[in-house]
């Protein structure tokens, strides 16, 4: 008996029970669709976190006060020491792998203009601050070295703040706002960056000279962080080593002492968040894999029932010349057809559902080609695996017993 004939027989047998075949496939359809959609959601969030973080500058190196954290565990209990401008100078002088470095000072407060007010954060940096953070000026200009030196009361304004203070119509550049009651002139509007993956509005800020934020607004001498750019992405770890040395010298730490600062790199953040979303993806994948398994058991159940229900048919087929192998193949092909057709529909549904979910929720979605290939193979395997036992049972029947089956 050749495969073409057997496939035709199997297909005819399925078509005789279209509705039941569809119900059987439903398990596989839902299973495959959910595997694909879940993995697409998981993978999409991972991709967007990676994009998001590298859009902040993949060669960004951040120095913060405090002890080094490794995987969330505090290493040692050395005290932390506030950072100041001397540290920035040390890095600027001693770290050839760092191309740009800027202090960062920040303070939260209410900003008022006319009758409107809005809570926001005022960031202070050096003239290269925008370059390091990969932020562009939309209209107006960046502050000058002169303005840094004189702690001029100028700032650049984020779109969110501008909208809330002035509305869409008014050009904020040239206006004067009051931050914590200090009048500050707006000299530039920042290019919009939107929300980041963690839901933080990246346009809800003011940026001014760090000297202004330190002296005029917060009245402090320390800085909150030092932002540096490695010359390129590969130089990041070299930059970290150089910065560590420079910082230890600057803080006069002796040989055995723990670092009293910590250094974060974008690359490190990417890998941390990637591994978090890998866990998420695995979890979602596992849940849907279970539903795929349940779908497979559904197929086995139907095939098993239909072997019993179709015993007389099996007997008849044997009486007109069907061999055990032919019967086995017929049932196996039926079950493979069920799972493969179900799998293909499931892939289509999964891809469509991913797109629809992406559209409705605005979540980033990335359908994994691998997920499609794997779920197709899994479907075939389910067909063979769950079809095998009932098919064997059918093939092992004695023709006369099958014919006489009541």
């Amino acid at each position, binding site marked *: *008996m050749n495969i073409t*004939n057997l496939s035709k027989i199997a297909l005819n047998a399925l078509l005789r029970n279209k509705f039941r075949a569809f119900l059987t496939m439903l398990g596989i359809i839902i299973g495959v669709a959910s595997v694909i959609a879940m993995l697409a959601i998981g993978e999409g969030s991972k991709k967007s976190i990676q994009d998001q973080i590298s859009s902040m500058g993949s060669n960004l190196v951040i120095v913060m006060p405090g002890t080094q954290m490794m995987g969330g565990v505090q290493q040692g209990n050395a005290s932390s020491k506030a950072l100041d401008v001397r540290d920035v100078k040390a890095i600027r002088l001693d770290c050839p792998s760092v191309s740009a470095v800027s202090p960062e000072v920040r303070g939260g407060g209410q900003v008022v203009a006319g009758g409107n007010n809005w809570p926001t954060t005022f960031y202070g940096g050096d003239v290269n601050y925008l370059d390091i953070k990969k932020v562009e000026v939309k209209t107006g200009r960046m502050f000058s070295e002169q303005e840094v030196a004189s702690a001029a009361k100028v700032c650049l304004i984020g779109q969110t703040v501008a909208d809330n203070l002035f509305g869409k119509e008014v050009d904020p550049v040239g206006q004067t706002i009051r931050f914590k009651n200090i009048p500050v002139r707006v000299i530039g509007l920042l290019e919009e960056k939107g929300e980041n993956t963690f839901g933080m509005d990246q346009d809800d800020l003011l940026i001014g000279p760090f000297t202004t934020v330190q002296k005029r607004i917060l009245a402090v001498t320390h800085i909150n962080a030092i932002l540096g750019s490695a010359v390129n992405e590969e130089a990041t770890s070299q930059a970290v080593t150089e910065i560590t040395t420079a910082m230890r010298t600057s803080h006069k730490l002796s040989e055995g002492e723990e670092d009293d600062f910590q250094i974060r790199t974008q690359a490190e953040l990417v890998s941390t968040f990637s591994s978090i979303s890998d866990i998420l993806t695995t979890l979602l994948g596992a849940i849907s894999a279970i539903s795929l398994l349940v779908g497979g058991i559904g197929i086995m159940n139907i095939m098993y029932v239909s072997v019993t229900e179709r015993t007389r048919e099996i007997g*008849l087929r044997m009486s*007109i*010349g069907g*061999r055990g*192998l032919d019967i086995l193949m017929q049932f196996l092909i039926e079950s493979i057809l069920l799972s493969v057709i179900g799998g293909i529909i499931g892939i289509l549904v999964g891809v469509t559902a991913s797109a629809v979910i992406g559209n409705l929720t605005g979540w980033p979605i990335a359908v994994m080609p691998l997920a499609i290939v794997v779920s197709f193979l899994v479907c075939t395997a389910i067909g063979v695996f769950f079809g095998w036992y009932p098919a064997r049972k059918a093939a092992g029947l004695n023709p006369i017993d099958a*014919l006489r089956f009541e």
Partner: protein
Amino acid sequence: MKRNIISVSSLKKDFIVGEVTVHALRSVNLDITEGEFVAIMGTSGSGKSTMLNILGCLDKPTEGIYLLDGIDISTLNKNELARLRNLKLGFVFQSYNLLPRTSALENVELPLFYNDSVKPRERRERAIAALGAVGLADRMHHMPNQLSGGQQQRVAIARSLVNDPVVILADEATGNLDTRTSYEIMALFQELNAKGKTIVFVTHEPEIAGFTTRNVHFRDGNIIKENLVTNRGSAREMIMAMPLEVDS
């Protein structure tokens, strides 16, 4: 001399049911030659179906020799038996055994699906010819549930003919049908027999057996009597002679 299609000697068949052994066939000797139309008769439980199932290679005898068209079936394995059924045997069952929701034509085609040497085109042509031979050329695309009992049995007969078997085996093929329809089926068998088909027909109705050429009587697993039918009736003529149903 005509060749022996079926040659059975000292055939025994025991069924073991729990502690009890049922001797369904005790020691049967039977030869059937080409072109015969044999009725196997006997009371219920006498072993007729058991005999037919063994002749049909659906069941194996406990003891004894069975030569089908010269082949000793005890030397064949399961797959070879299946092939033998496919090429040399045709079955007609009391309950038709048609595949539901499958057209008459596809039902008749079925045996040829299991024969690789028959190409799809030939398969279709032979099935159409077989349906024509049983007078159902105009019912090819009907489903079994759209056919009367007699018509379903004709489809089953067409299915048994389609592989051009050396012998057709029928077990109570008229058992579910009314008298007139039974005669129509017997008329069909008589036509096939007249064209040279060898037929073995199990029945317990003497008037049905009267349409065959030889009657073999079973009792308690033994053949107790054999006789050639002397004044063989024609089923076609009997139908003609029957009073017509009152048509509205």
